[in-house]
Structures are given as C-alpha cells and as structure tokens.
C-alpha cells in the first residue's frame, strides 16, 4: 500500500477533474462534427440537435458512473462529498439531456419523413434496431430521477433509494447498443465504435476494481472485526475495530471509511463514519451518534463481528501550511476533528459546540491531548437561549481564537451549524479558501 506522501502525489484535484471531463465533452462534440456531412432543413436541425444531445448523454452517463466509482486518487483529491454533489447535479443535467435527445430525434425524423410525431414514434420503436430497449432505459432513468428528487427521497429509507438507484446500470446496459445501431456517428466509423466501447469498458473495469475487487482484497488482508463497543454519551458510542496491517491503509486524520457490519440486520447497509482516532497497526475507532434504527443496532454490535470497510475516503484532511489551525466542531462533528486534534502539529485551537454537557464526548481525551501539546480547547455548551447571543458569531470566534483571520479552519458539524459558521468565519476575516469542511448534503 502506498504511503500517505506517495498517495498525495497521485491525487486528482477538482480543477483537474473538471478539465478532464470538459476535454472529453469537447472530443464528443468533435466526433459529431466529424461524422456529420451537412444539415438539410428544419428536420435536419432537429435531428442534428438530437444527435448532439444523444452523444453528450452517452458520454455523461459514463462520467456519472466514473464519479461514483470510488477511484482512490479521485476520491482523495476531489473529496467524497464534492463527488456526490457533482454526481447529483450532473445526474439531473444528463437525464434532461437524454430526454431532450429522445424528443428531438422523434420530432426531427417526423419532420424529415413528413409524418406526425406519433406515427414516427411507432416507427422508431418497432423498426429501428434496439430503440425499444433504449426507450425502456429512458423510462428507467426518469423513474430513478423521480425517486431521487429530495421530496421523494425523504419518504424512503436510504437503503431503498440506494438500491433503486442501481437501476441506472441496467438502463445504461439497455441503451448502449442503440448508440451503435442507430447513431450516425457510430454506424459508419469503426474507429468511433472502438474508442466509445473502450471508454465504457474502462469505466466498467474501474468500477469493478474499486468497488468490488479492492474492498474484497482489503477484507481478506486486514481481517477487521469488532473488538468492542463503548458508550461515550447517552446517544453516542465508539466502536473499536481490530485487524492487522492497518497502517497500510494510510488513513489520514479527518478521513472516513464506508463500514459494513456483517451481522443480521446490518450487512446490507453501508455507512460512512469518520475515524475518531488515528489507527494503530491493529486497532481503529469510529464514533457514532444514535440517529435512527441502524445507529441503535450498531450500539449492540457483538465483539467478533466481521467488518467490511471501504476506504479511506475523504478530502477533509489537514493540509500542512505552517499556519495555526482552528478546529470547530459541532455535535457529532467532533469525531473527525478529534483525530485531527491528536495528529496535528503546530498551534491548534479546538472549539467544541454542544447543546448539553451530556453530549460532550472524549472530554478527558481532549483535555489530555490539549495539555500534552499545549493546545487550547473551548467547550461552548448550552442552547442559544441559555447563552443569550449566537455563541459562534464572528465576534465570539475572534475572542476564542485570537488571530483567527490568519488561521486554517477545519469545520465539522450539522448542516445548519456549518452554514452559519462559514458565514461567521468569513465575517471574521478568514478567506474562503482557508475554511475547510465536508458537506454531505445533496
């Protein structure tokens, strides 16, 4: 396994990733340009537009899969949260593009053939090769889009939505052949078909490698099992996980794994939990807050339960800049920051916000670390009403962390707190690029 430094060298940052995606899109448009001789009439314009959108959609789906393939250099460089947001936005866009493609092709063909769209649709479905499969694929995608809309997603469990989402793979498989059978850019060009197939095969191979082979290999190699469970607070537990060769994972402070506990009721779920302490070669720790059913079941994990862990993931890790660091934790956001607090060198200040003292976890650890390295911990406890004003206002932050505007700030907490904290930090003079946080809302 690569060391942390070597891994960093192989990173793909967000700008590089976007540039590569854009370059691919340009190449796809060039393919259309090269394969189109001329455009005749209104029908030709409609069909041409439909073809361009079709090519972009075929490319777009491959990119969407790529974003979720959990390719380590990309995950580490771009960040799991950003990839998820890109995938969600991109998904909405590409499904719209695919719908535009279908409608414009029907309309364009109908105009060229001087028939009405309804009969042209029937002709396309019944006589053009593989169009029926592609249409089924389209409806599948529309269904997935509907189910992924925030309003609908809220009504179902995460797992239900997650497994429904896998129908996109089926849709991509169903729609693939009509590209070659009916697409003007492909029917006449073996070279185009070759490279397009190579692209799909490459991404498919990456998906299988990073989402199946690597986790299976790590599972066999590291032999993770639950060592024990400790209650840190009324609703918070730490899970200790033992294994071997854990240093090879090269986890960095602030990173998380996707955990799958192989026991009844939990094996079909995968959860992202951050490490709350840097791993030793044989032991890892995560800390989980009881939010719903699964978190409750986690508290009852039996020692010896096997664990399948994918990771480490996440770009929320400290960057060595020589500046002082402010760690700002809200509620269960203390988890990754606790790992950072122990691992960082230099001057560090930790501000830990919680509603009640019962919610504060690791207090003795944090105090011990603070004393050992000369760092400062501020516990900001109490509800808004108790404290009178916003305890994390710009003024309050400047007071708790003097010289704030010169610091690197790492922020982790519930979405509401993160939003207002970013605003306050900006107001306090911290440049946006020095505010680091991970936001998993999409």
């Amino acid at each position, binding site marked *: 396994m690569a060391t942390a430094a070597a891994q960093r060298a192989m990173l793909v940052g967000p700008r590089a990733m976007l540039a590569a995606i854009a370059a691919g899109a340009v190449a796809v*448009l060039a393919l*259309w*340009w090269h394969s*189109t*001789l*001329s*455009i*005749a*009439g209104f029908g*030709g*314009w409609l069909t*041409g*537009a439909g073809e*361009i*959108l079709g090519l972009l959609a075929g490319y777009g789906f491959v990119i969407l899969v790529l974003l979720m393939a959990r390719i380590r250099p990309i995950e580490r460089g771009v960040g799991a949260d950003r990839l998820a947001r890109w995938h969600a*936005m991109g998904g*909405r*866009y590409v499904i*719209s*593009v695919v719908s*535009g493609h279908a409608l414009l092709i029907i309309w364009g063909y109908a105009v060229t053939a001087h028939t009405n769209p309804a009969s042209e649709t029937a002709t396309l479905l019944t006589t053009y090769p593989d169009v029926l499969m592609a249409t089924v694929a389209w409806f599948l995608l529309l269904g997935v889009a509907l189910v992924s809309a925030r309003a609908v997603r809220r009504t179902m469990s995460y797992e239900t939505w997650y497994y429904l989402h896998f129908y996109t793979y089926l849709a991509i498989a169903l729609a693939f052949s009509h590209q070659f059978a009916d697409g003007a850019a492909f029917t*006449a060009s073996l070279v185009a078909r070759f490279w397009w197939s190579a692209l799909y095969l490459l991404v498919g191979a990456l998906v299988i490698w990073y989402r199946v082979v690597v986790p299976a290999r790590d599972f066999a190699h590291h032999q993770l099992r639950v060592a024990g469970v400790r209650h840190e607070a009324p609703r918070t537990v730490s899970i200790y996980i033992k294994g071997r060769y854990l240093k090879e994972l090269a986890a960095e402070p602030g990173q998380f794994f996707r955990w799958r506990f192989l026991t009844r009721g939990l094996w079909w779920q995968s959860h992202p939990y951050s490490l709350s302490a840097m791993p030793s070669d044989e032991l890892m720790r995560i800390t989980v807050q009881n939010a719903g059913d699964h978190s409750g079941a986690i508290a009852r994990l039996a020692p010896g339960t096997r664990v399948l862990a994918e990771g480490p993931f996440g770009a929320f890790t400290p960057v060595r800049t020589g500046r002082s660091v402010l760690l700002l934790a809200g509620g269960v956001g203390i988890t990754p920051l606790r790992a950072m607090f122990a691992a960082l060198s230099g001057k560090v200040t930790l501000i830990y916000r919680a509603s009640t003292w019962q919610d504060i976890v690791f207090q003795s650890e944090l105090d011990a670390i603070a004393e050992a390295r000369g760092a400062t911990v501020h516990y900001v406890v109490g509800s808004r009403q108790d404290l009178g004003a916003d305890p994390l206002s710009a003024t309050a932050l400047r007071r708790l962390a003097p010289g704030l505007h010169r610091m690197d700030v790492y922020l982790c907490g519930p979405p509401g707190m993160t939003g207002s904290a970013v605003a306050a930090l900006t107001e306090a003079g911290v440049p946006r690029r020095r505010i680091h946080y991970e936001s998993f809302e999409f």
Partner: protein
Amino acid sequence: MRRAILAVIATVAGLLALLSFKTHSSERTTASVQPAPSLPKGERAVTGNVANTAYGPVQVQLVVKTITAAGGKSQAGTILKVNILEQPSATQEDTQIGQYAFPKLIAETLTAQSARIDAVSGATYTSGGYLKSLQSALDNGA
C-alpha cells in the same frame, strides 16, 4: 435553480452554435460540377435546381425525347438519360456515395415507373453481361 437555468441556456446556445457552423461549413463544400453534354435533335435537357441534400448540393439534369404533339407543340417525352451536373465530392464518403448511389439512382429513374425493384428478369446474361446490368446495380447498391 439558477444553475439549472444557466445550464439550459448554455446547452441551447451551444447546440445552435454547433448546428449553424455545420450548416455554413457544408454549404461551402466544393462540389464537382460536370459540364452538360450537347444534345442531338429531338432531345431536350431539363435541368433541376440545385438541391441541398444530406450529402451536400446535388443537381440533376434529365435528357428527354421531345414529342411533337398535335398542333405542333413539343412536349417532353420519355426520359432518355440522367446527367448528374453537381454532386458532393468533398470527402471520400461523398465520392463513394456518388459511385454507388448515383448509378442506382439513374437506374431507378429510368424504370417505367420510378419505384424500387428487387430484381431484374430478362434473357440470361453472361457473367460479363451481369456487370453492366441493372441487377448488378441492385446487388451492389443496397
């Protein structure tokens, strides 16, 4: 929401730009123009307008037999020959299409009714005779 609107506008603008550039560039494609042959008496050339097809500009000329009807008026009679005055030849594909499609097109134009046939029945042609036949055009044109 604003990002969505921007994405839609950018996509539509991009499509329009691509399509109009492609339309203009193909109109400037060089087309090969062949001179129309001079005709003997009793034959007349009818020249069609340049048609913008999906392959590029095409212009067709029909040579028809003139019939003098009652009253001395001359009318166009049977189609004797089809000349392609202008056909796209910008890319290799254009030339290939020209080699295969136009002979078939010509053959079809010369049928009693200009509808597509699947085979030709006639006195048995030799292998050499086949090469010059309509059946050969059908076998190669599809």
